[in-house]
């Protein structure tokens, strides 16, 4: 009886999840009348805007990951080593992006950093890119922080620091050559998640008027029939790739630990 319900729940769930994937794949192949073809994909790849926006979003993801790592690793390390009393504050801040919707946050950015403000970031393309990167860093903050903090829990931060200090290492050496390599797996899995979040992000990029991949997909969706499902297949493959890489680094590291 239990098993019957279990199979029912599983099959029902799988149908719900698989049908849209089948639907988008099938639709994306139907561009040519009467036969399946990759025409929609060819159209997408021939579109210069696809490459431009995709490249832009990729560059922004890289910047977001760098900023996120530089921000989170030293902070999480410092909180663990010297400032355990700051933990509630830091954890509260890292949870804020889950509480405040992204659209509200970007609304605040636009009002706070507009051209008539003290810090007119939205006045230039570079300033807006900077603002967008900071926005993406906040979106990724909860995941990045949790990942790195869990990684730090598995190593003995205090002993490693003292050992490095007695060998004459400064703070930057300790962070870059001792702590970072030890939490590399956590950092990488946070980085791949950030990549998955940033690549397709729509709201912040659209409202800051930047030529990112998310707004491009939306624009194409409003004007074309067969390219959007092709884009959806591509986006799904990218998300799958990011998650796969995340699992891969975790599994590889477990292997190494087991051997050691």
């Amino acid at each position, binding site marked *: 009886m*239990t098993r019957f*319900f*279990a*199979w029912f*729940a*599983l099959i029902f*769930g799988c149908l*719900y*999840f698989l049908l*849209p*994937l089948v*639907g*988008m794949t*099938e*639709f*994306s192949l139907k561009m040519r009348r009467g036969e399946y073809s990759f025409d929609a994909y060819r159209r997408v790849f021939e579109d210069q805007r696809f490459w431009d926006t995709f490249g832009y979003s990729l560059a922004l993801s890289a910047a977001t990951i760098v900023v996120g790592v530089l921000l989170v690793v030293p*902070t999480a390390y*410092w*909180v663990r080593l*010297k*400032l*355990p*009393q*700051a933990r509630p504050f*830091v954890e509260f*801040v890292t949870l804020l992006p*889950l*509480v*405040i*919707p*992204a*659209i*509200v*946050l*970007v*609304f*605040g*950015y*636009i009002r*706070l950093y507009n051209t008539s403000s003290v810090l007119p970031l939205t006045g230039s393309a570079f300033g807006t890119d900077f603002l967008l990167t*900071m*926005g993406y*860093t*906040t979106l990724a903050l909860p995941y990045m922080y949790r990942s790195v903090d869990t990684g730090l829990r598995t190593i003995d931060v205090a002993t490693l620091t003292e050992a490095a200090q007695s060998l004459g290492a400064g703070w930057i050496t300790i962070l870059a050559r001792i702590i970072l390599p030890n939490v590399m797996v956590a950092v990488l899995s946070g980085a791949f998640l950030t990549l998955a979040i940033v690549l*397709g*992000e*729509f*709201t912040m990029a659209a*409202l800051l008027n930047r030529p990112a991949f*998310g707004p491009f*997909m*939306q624009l194409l*969706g409003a004007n074309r029939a067969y390219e*959007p*499902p092709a884009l*959806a297949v591509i986006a*799904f493959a990218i*998300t799958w790739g990011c*998650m796969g890489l995340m*699992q891969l680094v975790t599994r590889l590291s477990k292997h190494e630990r087991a051997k050691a």
Partner: protein
Amino acid sequence: MAKDTVRRARRRLPLEWLGILPFAIFAVLFLILPTMRIVIGAFQTADGSFTFQNMLDLNTPSIVNAYWTSIKLSLITAGLGCAIGFAMAAAVVFGGLPKGVRSPLLTFSGVASNFAGVPLAFAFIATLGPAGLITIWLRTEFGINLRGMGFNLLSFWGLVITYLFFQIPLMILIIIPALDGLKREWREAAAVLGATGAQYWRMVALPILFPSLLGTFALLFANAFGAVATAFALTGPQLNIVPIKLFAQIRGDVLGNPNLGFALAFGMIVITVIANTIYIVLRVRSERWLK
């Protein structure tokens, strides 16, 4: 050792706190100040003086309707997401399914919970839209006309079906570790004392799981409440929910009053803060009970 660190930290307080200064500056500039700007703006007139008028102005049929639709959408997708996600997770953990099912389900949930936004809308349009796979299949094979039956993907219920695609996997990801935490001994102890399966669930397992269930519910609620991209790509600016209204307001001041836009955003903050506070208070209470 922990005590020692704390004592040392107290003696040289300012220097130690410098270590999290970059983080604090980042938080102030890109999280706290922008939020404060919205909150303050919601209580200001156009020339900057204090007012409650913006709050009162929210009380128009269109805005109230938008909030009501958003809250309903978030409650329904969070509730269904929790129920279906729980059923699937319980099926995998307790249902006696082959062991090989579990790992692919977790991997897939990780992917699906992140497959939100614009592409998700495309996937559902290609499946349940006017020319979608299922729509056409039902029409040609069974003569069932979904549209004729009143179903429209670009509507409230269409949005519910689409949102579930990321809500259910999120529930699965969070609840499977909690289900794993239920010890076999508890079930055996309950059985020894004569409890039926239903009694075990009602009196032992569910009270233990309650904080995680409720926490996930709050998380899913906030997740749906703040989502813009999926709804926007699916229905365009026409569906009257708060995030879409705010999106249009930020783009082009459709309400004709910038400060009313602040009030609209402030309302969103209030609702997500309430959801998260309920979660935290109840979790603390249930954890105390668990000890």
